[in-house]
């Protein structure tokens, strides 16, 4: 499989990171202006509109928040810092940057790894 070079998309990833931050902050606020609608729209643009063309449709980027998911050394979609003493039963405790995936048709690629802090749940 040809690995697309994602370097050129760096600024887009930075925007996605910001959207992720906004989404995270929104979870704690009750607001009546349906900001989440605008947010979802922006996410949708990244996922379906921005990079699709007439010859290649359905490509785009999505982000995923892995908070609470389990972690071990086989997991390459995030870069982890391990907090605490134990390395058993690690879970993702804090997400500094979400995982950004490149979607093309039914298959996906990790376009940018997430950055997380993990800690043992014991």
């Amino acid at each position: 499989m040809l690995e697309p070079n994602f370097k050129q998309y760096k600024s887009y990833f930075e925007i996605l990171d910001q959207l992720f931050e906004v989404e995270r902050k929104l979870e704690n606020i009750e607001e009546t202006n349906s900001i989440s609608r605008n947010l979802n729209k922006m996410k949708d643009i990244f996922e379906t509109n921005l990079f699709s063309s007439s010859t290649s449709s359905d490509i785009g980027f999505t982000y995923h928040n892995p908070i609470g998911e389990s972690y071990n050394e086989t997991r390459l979609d995030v870069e982890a810092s391990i907090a605490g003493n134990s390395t058993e039963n690690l879970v993702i405790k804090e997400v500094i940057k979400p995982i950004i995936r490149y979607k093309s048709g039914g298959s996906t690629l990790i376009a940018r790894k997430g950055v997380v802090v993990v800690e043992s749940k014991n």
Partner: protein
Amino acid sequence: MENTINIGIDLGTTNSAIAKFVKGDVIVFNNPLDYGRSTLPSVVYYKKDRIVVGNKAKEYLERDPKNVVGLFKRKMGTSESFQIKSINESKTPVDLSAQVLKELKTFVNTGDTLESIVITIPASFDSIQSNATKEAGKQAGFKQVVLLQEPIAASLAYANMKKSKELTDGNWLVYDLGGGTFDVALVRIKDGEMKVVDHEGDNFLGGSDFDRLIVEKLIIPKICEQYTFENLENQMKSATGKYNAKYYSLINQAEEAKIRLSAVSSAEIIVERMKDEEGNEVDMEITITKSEFNDLIKDSIDGTIEMIKTILTRNSLTSNDVQFNLMVGGSTFIPFVRQRVEEVLQIPANCEIDPTTAVAIGAAYYAATKPKEISKDKSEKKQYSISIKASYNKASKETDELFAARIKGNTEGLFYKIVRQDGGFDSGLKELTERINEDLPLVENAYNFFTLTVYDGQNNVIETGIEPIGINSGFGISGQPLPEDICLEVDDYDNPGQTRLALIFERNSVLPTKRTLTFPINKPILKGNESDRLWINVYEGPQTSLPEANKLIGVIEISGKQVSRDIAKGSDLEIAIMISESRDVTVSGYLNMSDQEFKNVFNPKVRDTNITLLKGQVTDLSSKLDEEIELATEKEDYETAGALSKVKKEMEAVADEAEKLTDDDVTDKRYQLEDKKRKIAQKIDSATKNKRLQKATDYYYETKAACEELIENSGNDHERKTFNDIVSQESAFMATKSPLKIQEKSDELHSIIGQIRWRTPDFLKGIFGSLLNDQAKMNDQSQAKSLIDAGNFAIESQNWDRLREINFGLLDLLPRGSKEDITTKIGFGL
């Protein structure tokens, strides 16, 4: 087979890399599991059943020190070994280095057989340490190992970049400040021969120390100024501390800020999601300026300068005797490092090579000059015959799926590794046994492909012929496919006054599914005005047929009576359509301007027929029918005309009945009429399809010929590729017999034609000429005049790019066409 070694490895204390010389240039191989990066952290993690090398091992380095080893290069050539708890064995620095070298082999994607290699070593290595490095190379399966000193490698990278392999005789320094170690070497070149004369170093100084300083000396004090904490630094740095997780998050941000500070004068670090001792939510933005950061690292950098001074004194040299100071290692990206060293020593800092890969690149250049010396003893090669029988679920809704396999053949001394092709999972190197099991984590709603590779003890790939492991996650398991296309009716801007269907979900899409589309509306909706309406009509049936011929499965009508304010033309209508597994259709329309949502759920068993809409469609259909009959008669196509005339009678009956229906009719009449109408529309559709198809096909071939000619004369590679892509699909889209599909392809070809034409001088001149004729109509006469002057000059100087810009500028000055008065039915379109 190449006769020179060509491949070089930078086996670093903290990071390693591998590069290859190819036809005069060097490529640095990317880390296949960490793309975007070409380096591999020199860290090895032993688990009971697997060995993990690189980034993942590095993450565990501090937390699981009994099983993870890093910085072992410092111990090369000593009798010291590392006791590994999980496997109850001890590993020597040579063993560990061999693991890193083996992992680097997997970076090489050019299919080379790796038997000969150049490996770099620090200038400080003595012969025992050098021999240990050679030993590690042998252990990793290389038959010929050539060593090269790192400062020389960096110098070679520089010399080759300059394309003058002969540098002038003299001295220079190689200043190597990496992630965790610092080395400086004095290199002398005499009669074309390079030699390391002297060196100094600090094994515990590098970029990661700077990150730590930022957190400890800048961030923590600033947090404590504003919030109440008892010994925050300890609480962060201790593994049992309350804020240990936060510490790593700050270290991460500090590293990022450090990188940013190389380019800008200040960087922000946001501290949030933690509470102080009094329960106050911490939320602050800490600004770190370049000068604060520079002050922070000044002492460390001055320490490196002292080492250089020591070298100079020892060799009775002054700064003037040194040509330049070659900067290597990631931390030399920091401008202050370059400036400070240059300023104090008065030796120019040379930053012309990529500091992270210079050593590997230099090693590869050196490798290109070293002949291979391997006895080609073919019989030595072992013939492995391994066959793998795999079993796993090809579809799964779990987050991971068990993969099991039986191995036939001699598995002794062999290893395997399973990697997910999106780069998100690596099992690590595991021993191959007769039966293997592995839990494979799946990405939701995607096809997951894994590859299983078998390696021998030296990480050479053993051919097994096993197919990629494909597991489909999420959809496609219980979800049923859509039996028909689902489309949205939109105004057809190509045929003013008509509507067409826009595909939303293709037939056989798997349910549930969801899609959101946004359209600017093409007419204003005035508050309170009932006749201003938008229609969201969702149809089931082929995308290619007329809207009236398909089954209406959901409709939302938005009139002026419902809106809370006037909605301007051009404002956005966001339409979301969702179909559940049980085929309930949820349609919602959202008006951006009034922040109003109109939503309805349509159940497939209860048909919803809107009488106003039905009447409108019947009227439209009647006039369309009349037109078609007239057209067919004109063309003397009596067969079609005959068929249509028959339909005409049915049509009249339906129209009569529809007229009698009241808006609140409660009988089944509306459904019967709807059915009849649909059948009539289908008949019209099929009777006239040939005509439309012929027209579209003719147009396509015309466009194709024109496009081909243009591309041959003045197309570029990209355009040629797009053209070929379209043409290669020709048989497929022609076979659909869909005028719309074919039209779409013609449009794509047309856009290529447009692109090329806008580059060709003749076309640009032509456009410019016709714009000249329209000058009187333009909005801003003085601007038009200056653009025209500039255009004439551009033609004279044959500056076609400029002429193109001018043409665009002039076009903008033309008043908009008077197409505004076209009536639209739906309220938005394509």
